[in-house]
């Protein structure tokens, strides 16, 4: 084999190695393992009161939220820095304090709806997610909150970027040898 041919072969093998690693990372990034499920409920939520729960999440976590609430109840899914959580512990949470909390600068509303919410949330950074159901009406609705934490083996964004970059690099490295092989086969 001539030097150029050997060089393209070595490049192709390195390219295939890069593609294998890229595939491994891609496979890992789609695997999600459930870790814990919590459930809280209230058969009657008095007016002005809030039923809430929280989970601290990271870039590899997926939080699946299932909420059912009766008439007059508002559902909030909020993300805030971990330090902010102490504020909720020290003050009794009701509809007024919840609205004041949500109005703060570094508190982000991920979802806000009424009656029913079934959704999975992914995160780019560490945060605390608060799921709250506030009775802003005058009735006594029933409320049910179920949160399932799932762990992704590799953070989705980072895993896919890494996998894509490595896959492209691998393809570029393997391409000259593949082209050479195809051309050689064609000339026979």
């Amino acid at each position, binding site marked *: 084999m*001539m*030097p150029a041919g*050997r060089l393209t072969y070595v490049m192709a*093998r390195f390219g*295939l*190695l890069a*593609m*294998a*690693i890229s*595939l*491994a*990372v891609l*496979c*890992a990034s789609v695997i999600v*393992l459930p*870790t814990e499920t919590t459930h809280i409920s209230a058969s009657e939520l008095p007016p002005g009161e809030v039923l809430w729960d929280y989970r601290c999440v*990271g870039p*590899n976590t997926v939080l699946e939220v299932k909420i059912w609430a009766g008439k007059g109840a508002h559902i909030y899914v909020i993300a805030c820095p971990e330090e902010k959580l102490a504020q909720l512990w020290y003050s009794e949470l009701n509809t007024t304090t919840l609205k004041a909390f949500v109005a703060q600068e570094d508190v982000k509303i991920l979802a806000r709806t009424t009656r029913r919410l079934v959704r999975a949330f992914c995160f780019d950074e560490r945060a605390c997610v608060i799921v709250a159901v506030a009775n802003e009406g005058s009735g006594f609705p029933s409320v049910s909150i179920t949160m399932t934490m799932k*762990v992704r*083996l*590799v*953070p989705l964004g*980072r*895993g896919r970027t*890494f996998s894509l970059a490595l896959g492209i690099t691998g393809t570029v490295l393997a391409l000259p040898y593949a082209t050479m092989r195809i051309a050689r086969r064609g000339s026979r």
Partner: protein
Amino acid sequence: MAVGRRWPPLEILAMDLKEAYRFPIPEILAFLYAFFPLIFSPVAYAAMGLEAEEARLLIIMSLSSSMISFITIILILKNISYGLANEIRKGLVQTYLTYPVGRASFFLVKLISGVLIPIAYIVLSICVFTGLLFPDLALKHLDVFLLGLLAFVADVLLPASLMFLAAIAVRRGGASLAIGIALLFAVNVISSILLMIGNITGWEGVRHVYYTLNPLAALMRHYSLAIGGTPLGPGGGAPTMWECVAYLSGNYAIAIAFYVAALIYFLRRFEPV
């Protein structure tokens, strides 16, 4: 001009790689080495609760490499203890040495294909795992990351040097494999005995020998990481950073001494069957 004529060792390396790392073996190995540690990523995230960031980094690295190191040792056993010894037995080495290639170059080729390539897989595995999950932590403590990486490599390099020496001296695949496994056990048994003696008596000399054989343990102890959460150590206080570096250098010096001994034997005494 053909490359083979200019660089005969490269030609032999190419033949060796073609034999031992035929498509798709290296690709499958790369996939497994990259994928397998990622299974432990939930545990790695749980380690984020540890106080010292350096300790966190070492725990994360050890999660990615513990099983991988064992698999790599098996790979080296297959390549060196079985592969090289069988090549000597079957007279293949004699054929290789008819090439215009020096014995030292041939030795280097075998070292690359038999030991250094499997070790490169460990490095790849640790780098992919840490770089993908905790890039900021690894970059922030790059010195700890590199020292840890060297310590993980040392864990494999020293037993591999003994296997290499045994394969050249014994020259029979089966016997060399058995001796290689026995040596691996011996190193671990000696290490455990030193750990126990050090733990009971607190002798400083024993502690130094133990940490020289296990530089990773010294590094972990330096960052106050006890094995399995229990204060099981070879006695004495935590080693300083310079002591850790000295233990690591000592380990590499011993491994290199064994490789040099194997090389000298190969150059002066070795007669292919």
